[in-house]
């Protein structure tokens, strides 16, 4: 019995040993197959399934005004795309596309593009980028195969059209196209990062590892003041609608450091909406459009006259004929005068008188002063594609050039260049370059490359300020007056050159006014340029009232007291904030 039992056990042991040996050999062979022969392929499959390297898009920097108000910020928006890559999806059907179209209301151009890509069997198709998150949720709820969302950053302008031309726009790939968005693109855009995502079999993420940190774009603080910008845009729009002019621009600056507080253009646009139909709407007229300044340029002629001491302040000029002829060209005055002293020539903006002054000064001095005031050069403001203006070299001047230049013709400038020249006078002869960036996150506060420079003497600036004060008090700029403040300013009305007639048109004008206030300790300097106003066209009647309204509201906002001060017996009250109570 025990022998039979022992044999059975032996037999079973052998069978089991053979079975386990075969199982072990099979297992080893399978392991060799998997680990050696198929190692590379299987490893790749595992990596593809469990690991993914994602791009981390950097957040584009925010742009603030000088008081920390958000002017532009990037906000995540979903972009919808179709992909058949790595999925068991053949192609997007027409029915599915119709369902998407009902939600997104795609335009015909996009629909055509998508249909073409479907017929080409493209494995990746953008349906629409940066859509309303609610719409994206509706599309996700459809659970269409191959349709996914990708989060991208979209630029949002919470103030709408405010400072649209200064801020500029970006294209669909968040690259700056114009304005600060373009000139500071490298600062704002940041650098793309990478992250490793490990997922389990159910594709749940269990580990995120940053391989390369994204570098967020740096924030920029502009010198613009939201409130002054708003006041400026509102008053410019009001004037433009009233005068039915072609375009208009206003710049407000702080003369003692060249900071731009507002830069407005009309017509304007809301950068949150679709791109404008005309590229002109993207252009910042304040630095792009060139115009012959006319009488506002007389401040340069007057500066040369006073600085060189070639003209005495009590000298009298005969303007009684109302016109002055040089061969074929006759220059007229806007109204009749008798004999005017040098300051009166400027105060009443007499062309005849100023031409006589210019002729006395001569080519060399006029040319030198124009260049000293930096005409014909870019101001260096941190905005793209700034025009440098047009002024012919002295060798190419004609016999009319001195006369024309004295009264602001034969020279094309931008509004910013004119304001820069005015700021020299406002700033007691010292030139400060215009500046629109107050600070950049992570950089030293100083952004300007040009240092202050004396252009004219303090004495010349003081005399000229007095003349410009009188131009407002009793001259052509009377409509710019504000009761409690002393203003120094100059009007300009320039006929526009008609290339078809090859002469200056008496129908089309560029009207302007520029001034600073309070004149003895200026806080604001403002230039208003209105192109081709209908009806009234004099700078004193079209542009000066715009200056007045902007200055009045801005001074009130800045709490700059005028000559009228607080009466003694006034009861004042102060509202306590919740924190302090």
């Amino acid at each position, binding site marked *: 019995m025990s022998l039979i039992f022992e044999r059975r056990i032996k037999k079973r042991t052998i069978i089991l040993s053979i079975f386990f040996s075969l199982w072990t050999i099979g297992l080893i062979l399978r392991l060799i197959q998997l680990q050696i022969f198929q190692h590379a392929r299987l490893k790749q499959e595992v990596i593809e399934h469990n690991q993914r390297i994602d791009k981390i898009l950097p957040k584009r920097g925010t742009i603030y005004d000088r008081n920390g108000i958000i002017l532009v910020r990037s906000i995540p928006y979903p972009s919808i795309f179709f992909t058949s890559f790595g999925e068991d999806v053949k192609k997007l059907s027409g029915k599915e596309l119709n369902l998407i179209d009902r939600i997104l209301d795609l335009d015909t151009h996009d629909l055509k593009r998508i249909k073409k890509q479907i017929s080409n069997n493209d494995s990746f198709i953008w349906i629409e980028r940066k859509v309303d998150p609610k719409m994206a949720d509706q599309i996700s709820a459809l659970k269409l195969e191959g349709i996914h969302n990708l989060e991208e950053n979209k630029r949002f302008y919470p103030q709408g059209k405010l400072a649209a031309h200064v801020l500029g726009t970006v294209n669909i790939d968040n690259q700056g196209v114009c304005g600060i968005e373009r000139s500071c693109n490298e600062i704002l855009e940041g650098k793309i990062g990478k992250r490793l995502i490990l997922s389990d079999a159910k594709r749940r*993420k269990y580990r995120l590892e940053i391989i390369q940190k994204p570098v967020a774009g740096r924030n920029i603080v502009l010198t613009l003041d939201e409130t002054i910008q708003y006041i400026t845009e509102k008053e410019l729009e009001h004037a433009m609608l009233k005068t039915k002019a072609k375009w208009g621009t206003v710049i407000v600056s702080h003369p003692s450091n060249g900071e731009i507080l507002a830069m407005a253009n009309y017509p304007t646009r809301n950068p949150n909406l679709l791109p404008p139909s005309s590229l002109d709407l993207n252009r910042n007229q304040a630095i792009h459009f060139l115009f012959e300044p006319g009488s506002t340029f007389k401040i340069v002629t007057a500066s040369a006259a006073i600085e060189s001491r070639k003209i005495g302040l009590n000298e009298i000029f005969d303007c009684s004929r109302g016109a002055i002829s040089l061969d074929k060209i006759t220059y007229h005055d806007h109204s009749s005068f008798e004999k005017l002293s040098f300051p009166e020539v400027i105060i009443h903006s007499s062309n005849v008188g100023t031409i006589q002054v210019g002729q006395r000064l001569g080519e060399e001095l006029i040319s030198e002063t124009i260049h000293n005031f930096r005409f014909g050069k870019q101001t260096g403001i941190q905005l793209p594609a700034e025009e440098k203006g047009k002024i012919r070299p002295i060798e190419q001047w004609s016999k009319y050039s001195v006369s024309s230049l004295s009264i602001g013709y034969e020279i094309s400038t931008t509004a910013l260049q004119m304001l820069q020249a005015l700021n020299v006078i406002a700033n007691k002869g010292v030139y400060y370059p215009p500046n629109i960036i107050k600070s950049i996150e992570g950089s030293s506060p100083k952004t300007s490359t040009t240092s202050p420079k004396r252009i004219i003497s303090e004495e010349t600036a003081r005399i000229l300020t007095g003349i410009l004060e009188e131009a407002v008090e009793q001259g052509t700029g009377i409509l710019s007056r504000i009761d409690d403040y002393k203003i120094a300013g100059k009007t300009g009305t320039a006929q526009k050159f008609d290339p078809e007639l090859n002469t200056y048109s008496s129908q089309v004008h560029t009207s302007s006014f520029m001034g600073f206030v309070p004149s003895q300790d200026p806080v604001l300097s403002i230039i208003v340029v209105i192109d081709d106003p209908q009806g009234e066209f004099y700078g004193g009647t079209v542009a000066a009232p715009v200056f007045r309204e902007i200055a009045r509201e801005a001074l009130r906002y800045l709490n700059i007291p005028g000559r009228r001060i607080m009466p003694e017996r006034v009861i004042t009250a102060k509202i306590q904030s919740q924190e302090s109570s």
Partner: protein
Amino acid sequence: MVRKKLNRKEMIFIFFCTCIFVLILTFYIWHLIESIRVGYDASSLTIELQELKERVEKLETQKAKLLALERVERIAEEKLNLEKPRKEQIFHFAEKSISDGKSL
């Protein structure tokens, strides 16, 4: 072939070793599971933090949009019937100098 009977001491030793092995194995598996769970929690918290940051930014932007001066002025004039102060209603304090104005 006669199987050798284990004595009591040996059995206790084997039992003890098995217990230790099971304990170590259990601890190791628990540790692995905990690590993975903490990984899940950390990644979901990272995502939540990111989402909250984005939400704060969105709210700040929304605030800026709601406080846009054009909108505020429209509401003040149309809904609240407010008017701009007249000249005689504005007083500047004499002791206030120009430099006290907004940060220019």
